[in-house]
C-alpha cells in the first residue's frame, strides 16, 4: 500500500488542480473547460472505485495518510475506511451524471460552472476523507463557497432570493461550527478525531458540561446541513430554485451532514466515552422522526413538482437521522444502504423533473383542490373516446418509465433498491438476532417503523399524482424535446439502483462490515494514532 497510499490524496488534489487550471481560460474555451471537467470527473470515478476496493480488501479497518509526514495527534490526517470510500464513490458517480446532464445546455447558463463544480468536488472529497475537526471546517467552507456559486448559477430573481437565504443561513451555521470546535479544543486540547475519542473518556466532571455543550453546538451545525426539522426550512426552497444539475449534486451535499454525524457520534460518543456515552441519542431520534413527518407533509402538500424532490431530501435525511439515533449495528447497515439508494434516486428525480416540466405552463401543477378553492372549474372533461392503443411518443414513454421507477424507489416498493433498504432497516428492528428470540421493541422503534411506512405511502401518493398530472393523463401537452445526453444520466442512475438490487447481497455485506467497524472504533483510533511517519525522507523524524 506504500506506493498506492498517495492515491488517497488524489480525490482532493485532482479537483483542485483541474479547477485552478480552468480559471486560466477565462471567458474563451468553454468547451475546453467542459472537457477538463469531464476528464477530471471520470478520473475521480475510477480513483474512488479503486479506493473502495482497497478499503474493502484491506486487513486494517482504516488506511491513514499523514499530511506533511507529521505523526497523528500533531499533524492532520486523511483516513480512508469503508465508509469514506463509499461516500467518495457516491459523490463521484453523482458528479459524473450531473455533469453529463449539464453539458446539454445548463452549463452555459453562467460563466463559472465548471471550476465551481470541481471545487465543490474537492470540498466534498476532503470532508469525507479528513480525520481532523478543523480541517473538516476548512473543507466544509470550500464546499459551501462553491455551492453558493453553484446555487446562484443561472441567476434570475427566484435563484438569487433563495441563494441569499441559503448563504446567510450557512454563514451563521459556520460560526456555530467554529464555536463548537473551539469549545471542544478548549476542553480536550486536541482536534484530531481519533485523539479526541480517547480524551473524551478522561475529561473531568467540571469540564464535561463544556465539552457536551461544544459537541451539541457542533452537532447543530451538521444538522442544519443534513436538514433536521426545525433547521431545514431553507432546504426545499434552495434545492428547488437551483438549476437541475446543481440540485442533483446538492443531493449528496445534504448527506455530508449525515456522514459527519454518523462518524463523529459513533467515534466520540460511542460506548467508550465514559460519562458522555450516547450523548444526544434521543435528540437524533426525535429530530429524525420530526423531519420525516415534516417531509411527509411537505411531499403531500406541494403544488410544485420540483419542490417534491426537495421535500424527498428531507424525508431521506430524517430517516437516516432517526436510524442513526436508534443506535444498532444492523440498523446502521440498513441506513447506509438506504443512503446510497435514496441519494441516487433523488439525484435522478431532480434531473427528471426538469425534463418532465419542460414546455408546461406555470400553474399547471396546481392541485385540483386549489383550483376549486380559487373558483376555477376543473377543465378536464372526461370524454368517452374510443382510443385503443394510441401511440405514445418514445420520449414520453421513457420519461414515464423513469418517473415510475423514481416513484417506486422513493416509496420503497419492490423490486428496486428502495424496498431492500427499508426492508433491511425494518428487519433489524423486528428480528435483530434471530427468529426465535423474544425481543422487546421500544416506542421509539415503533414510531420509526410507522413513519417509515407512512413516508413511503405519502411519497407514492405524491409521485403518482404528479405523474398523472404531468405525464400519464391524456391532456394536451407538447412532447418535450430531450436529448440523449440528458436522458442518459437519469437512465444510468436508475439502472444503478437496479444493479444495487441485483447485487444486494455483496452490497449489504459491505454495509454490514462498515457498520461493524463504525461500532468498534478502536480499529480506527489505533490506525490513526499508531501510523508511523515515513522513513527515508530527508529530515523525517526517526
Amino acid at each position, binding site marked *: 500500500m506504500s506506493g498506492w497510499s498517495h492515491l488517497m490524496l488524489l480525490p482532493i488534489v485532482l479537483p483542485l488542480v483541474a479547477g485552478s487550471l480552468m480559471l486560466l481560460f477565462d471567458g474563451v474555451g468553454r468547451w475546453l473547460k467542459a472537457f477538463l471537467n469531464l476528464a477530471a470527473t471520470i478520473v475521480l470515478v475510477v480513483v474512488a472505485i479503486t479506493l473502495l476496493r482497497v478499503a474493502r480488501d484491506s486487513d486494517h479497518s482504516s488506511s491513514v495518510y499523514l499530511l506533511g509526514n507529521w505523526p497523528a495527534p500533531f499533524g492532520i490526517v486523511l483516513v480512508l475506511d469503508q465508509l469514506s470510500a463509499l461516500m467518495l464513490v457516491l459523490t463521484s458517480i453523482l458528479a459524473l451524471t450531473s455533469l453529463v446532464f449539464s453539458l446539454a445546455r445548463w452549463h452555459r447558463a453562467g460563466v463559472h460552472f465548471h471550476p465551481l463544480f470541481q471545487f465543490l468536488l474537492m470540498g466534498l472529497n476532503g470532508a469525507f476523507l479528513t480525520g481532523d475537526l*478543523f480541517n473538516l471546517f476548512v473543507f466544509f467552507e470550500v464546499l459551501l463557497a462553491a455551492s453558493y*456559486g453553484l446555487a446562484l448559477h443561472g441567476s434570475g430573481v427566484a435563484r438569487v432570493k433563495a441563494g441569499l437565504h441559503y448563504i446567510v443561513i450557512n454563514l451563521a451555521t459556520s460560526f456555530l461550527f467554529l464555536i463548537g470546535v473551539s469549545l471542544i479544543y478548549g476542553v480536550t486540547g486536541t482536534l484530531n478525531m481519533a485523539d479526541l475519542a480517547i480524551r473524551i473518556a478522561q475529561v473531568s466532571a467540571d469540564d464535561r458540561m463544556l465539552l457536551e455543550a461544544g459537541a451539541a453546538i457542533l452537532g447543530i451545525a451538521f444538522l442544519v446541513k443534513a436538514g433536521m426539522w426545525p433547521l431545514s426550512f431553507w432546504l426545499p426552497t434552495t434545492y428547488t430554485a437551483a438549476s437541475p444539475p446543481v440540485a442533483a449534486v446538492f443531493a449528496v451535499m445534504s448527506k455530508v451532514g449525515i456522514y459527519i454525524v454518523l462518524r463523529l457520534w459513533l467515534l466520540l460518543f460511542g460506548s467508550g466515552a465514559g460519562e458522555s456515552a450516547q450523548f444526544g441519542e434521543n435528540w437524533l431520534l426525535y429530530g429524525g422522526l420530526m423531519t420525516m413527518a415534516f417531509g411527509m407533509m411537505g411531499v403531500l402538500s406541494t403544488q410544485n413538482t420540483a419542490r417534491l424532490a426537495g421535500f424527498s431530501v428531507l424525508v431521506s435525511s430524517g430517516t437516516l437521522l432517526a436510524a442513526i439515533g436508534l443506535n444498532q449495528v444492523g440498523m446502521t447497515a440498513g441506513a447506509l444502504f438506504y443512503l446510497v439508494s435514496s441519494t441516487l434516486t433523488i439525484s435522478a428525480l431532480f434531473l427528471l423533473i426538469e425534463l418532465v416540466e419542460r414546455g408546461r405552463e406555470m400553474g399547471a401543477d396546481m392541485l385540483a383542490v386549489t383550483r376549486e378553492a380559487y373558483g376555477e372549474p376543473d377543465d378536464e372533461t372526461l370524454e368517452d373516446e374510443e382510443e385503443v392503443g394510441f401511440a405514445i411518443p418514445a420520449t414520453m414513454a421513457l420519461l414515464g418509465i423513469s418517473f415510475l421507477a423514481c416513484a417506486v424507489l422513493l416509496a420503497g416498493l419492490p423490486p428496486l433498491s428502495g424496498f431492500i433498504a427499508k426492508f433491511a432497516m425494518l428487519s433489524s428492528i423486528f428480528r435483530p438476532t434471530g427468529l426465535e428470540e423474544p425481543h422487546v421493541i421500544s416506542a421509539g422503534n415503533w414510531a420509526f417503523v410507522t413513519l417509515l411506512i407512512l413516508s413511503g405511502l405519502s411519497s407514492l401518493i405524491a409521485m403518482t399524482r404528479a405523474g398523472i398530472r404531468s405525464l400519464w393523463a391524456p391532456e394536451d401537452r407538447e412532447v418535450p424535446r430531450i436529448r440523449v445526453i440528458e436522458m442518459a444520466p437519469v437512465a444510468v442512475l436508475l439502472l444503478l439502483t437496479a444493479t444495487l438490487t441485483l447485487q444486494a447481497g455483496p452490497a449489504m455485506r459491505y454495509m454490514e462490515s462498515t457498520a461493524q467497524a463504525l461500532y468498534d472504533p478502536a480499529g480506527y483510533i489505533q490506525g490513526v494514532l499508531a501510523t508511523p511517519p515515513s522513513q527515508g525522507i530527508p529530515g523525517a523524524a526517526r
Partner: protein
Amino acid sequence: MELVVAIAIGVLAGSGVWLLLRPRTFQVIIGLSLISYAVNMFIFSMGRLRTGAPPILEAGSTGDLTQYADPLPQALVLTAIVIGFATTALFLVVLLAARGLTRTDHVDGQERES
C-alpha cells in the same frame, strides 16, 4: 481580563444576532460581521488569556504550555478570519445582485404586505 473579554464577546454576539434577524440585507451583513468578530475572539480565548508569554521558543528548549501561549488557537483564528473575509465579500456581491434583481433590499425580496 477574562471578564472584559467575555463581556466583549457577549455584546458583539448579541448585537450580531439581533442584526442578523433584521429584514434589511445591509443589517444582516453587519450582523454577520459582528458575529464573526465575536466568534474569532472566542476561538482566541480558548487558548487561555495570558499576558507576556509569546509563543516563540527559546533556542534549544521544547515548548511547554505553562510557559508559552498556545499557538494553535491563534492559527485557527487566522484561518477563520480569512474564510470570513472571503464569504463576506461573496455575500456582498449577492446582496447587490438581489438589490438589482428584486429592486428592494428586503431579505425576502419583497416588502411584507401588511
